[in-house]
């Protein structure tokens, strides 16, 4: 036990190791995998991300031009980001915060010029 004394006294004089989390938020590390977001303006609805998702958290409907993402099913592995050639799927370091419900995120393509002409 005397061996421990040095550490104990050391702990008394050094500042606490605790991160005062909810009061002062820590900047996420730059390369951390926090959550997946989609930049839908770049999406061509090829479905490569949906194919590569091990948890099948992404559904792509090509005809409706719609991408449905379930953040509460996503395991943040980054396989979709690796598979996306358009840079639509992205990973940001900030984690997804907890929630009372688990909503799906639906991304729709912005209305295109072609469709404007038809209208």
């Amino acid at each position, binding site marked *: 036990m005397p*061996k421990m004394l040095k*550490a104990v006294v050391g702990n008394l004089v050094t500042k606490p190791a605790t991160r005062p989390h909810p009061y002062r938020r820590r900047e996420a590390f730059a390369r951390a995998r926090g959550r997946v977001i989609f930049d839908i303006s770049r999406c061509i609805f090829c479905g490569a991300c949906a194919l590569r998702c091990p948890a099948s958290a992404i559904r792509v409907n090509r005809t409706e031009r719609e991408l449905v993402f379930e953040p509460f099913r996503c395991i943040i592995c980054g396989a979709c980001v690796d598979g996306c050639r358009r840079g639509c799927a992205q990973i940001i370091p900030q984690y997804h915060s907890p929630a009372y419900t688990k909503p799906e995120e639906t991304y729709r393509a912005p209305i295109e010029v072609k469709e404007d002409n038809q209208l």
Partner: protein
Amino acid sequence: MGVKTILPFGPQHPVLPEPIQLRITLEDENIGQVLPALGYVHRGIEKAGEKNDYPLNVYLVERVCGICSATHGLAYCMAVEKLLAVEPPLRANYLRVVWTELHRLHSHLLWLGLLADAFGFESLFMQIWRIREMVMDALEKTAGNRVIISVNTIGGVRRDLTEEQIEETLRTLAECEKQLNAILPVILEDYTVRKRTVGKGVLTADQALRLGAVGPVLRASGVAQDLRMTGYAAYGELGFEPIVETAGDCYARAVVRARECFQTIDLVRRALQNLPEGDILTKPRGNPNGRAIVRVEAPRGELLYFVAGNGTKNLERMRVRTPTLANVPTLLEMLPGAEFADVPVITLSIDPCISCTER
């Protein structure tokens, strides 16, 4: 002859973070027979591995066990690489060693902390886990996630390290080593710790081999077997000597793991300092066909992957034999004769990982 009582230990028990049930037959305070009841964490990953495409399985097998996920990913990737005849680049092999060893370090520290907690030595538990947080931060900074780091992929690794990160990791390791040097002698020389572990749960070398023990349990019984000796990934270049103790009791297992912490720090340091330049990924082609077996050394011991492919995207069979599964039978030999109060310490001494065991 006392009264016989059958006592269920678990599945939800304060000492065990994981659900396993030990049905213990007691005669007064002494243990007669032990029967493990498993199945609380069985998910069916082997079956899911046949349904998925083979590249997706990497993410699946990493979730066999959160504590040694890097090792699972590595073993699976190595097995598929064998079937596809893909050779990962040298730099990828070194990086694999770095991350696998960092995972081993955090796993061993976690275990030492839990051991201290099992004695009721809470201060030491806190100290060790504080050191462990440094390793977790290093993992998050380099690999992107704290626990399941998902760095392995078929043909190499998914992330590269910059010079800056290498420097930073080396600094973290030096600090970690300094603090461990202050703490670990306490756990190894303390009167209370010795009193609770020396001579408890003795396993001789013969018994260990006969029961098929692996990893630190086997090495604590005096058998120098560590799969890193076979030189997979970059262990061949880095050179490796296994750590062996001869007593075979709980104390020897703690010593093996404590010494392995320093060895691991040394391995990571050498791998980072000698990191060769080059690519980190060889693109795999085709579909796996044939059968392959790969064994790697997980923090808890030998991990075996048997992979059979049939030329399609889906595997025909993926078999995972995890180290804890091999160590569970040793419990049935170590526990009988011990006192009931020692059950948590002896059970912990094999470092049980139930989610590994049942998959």
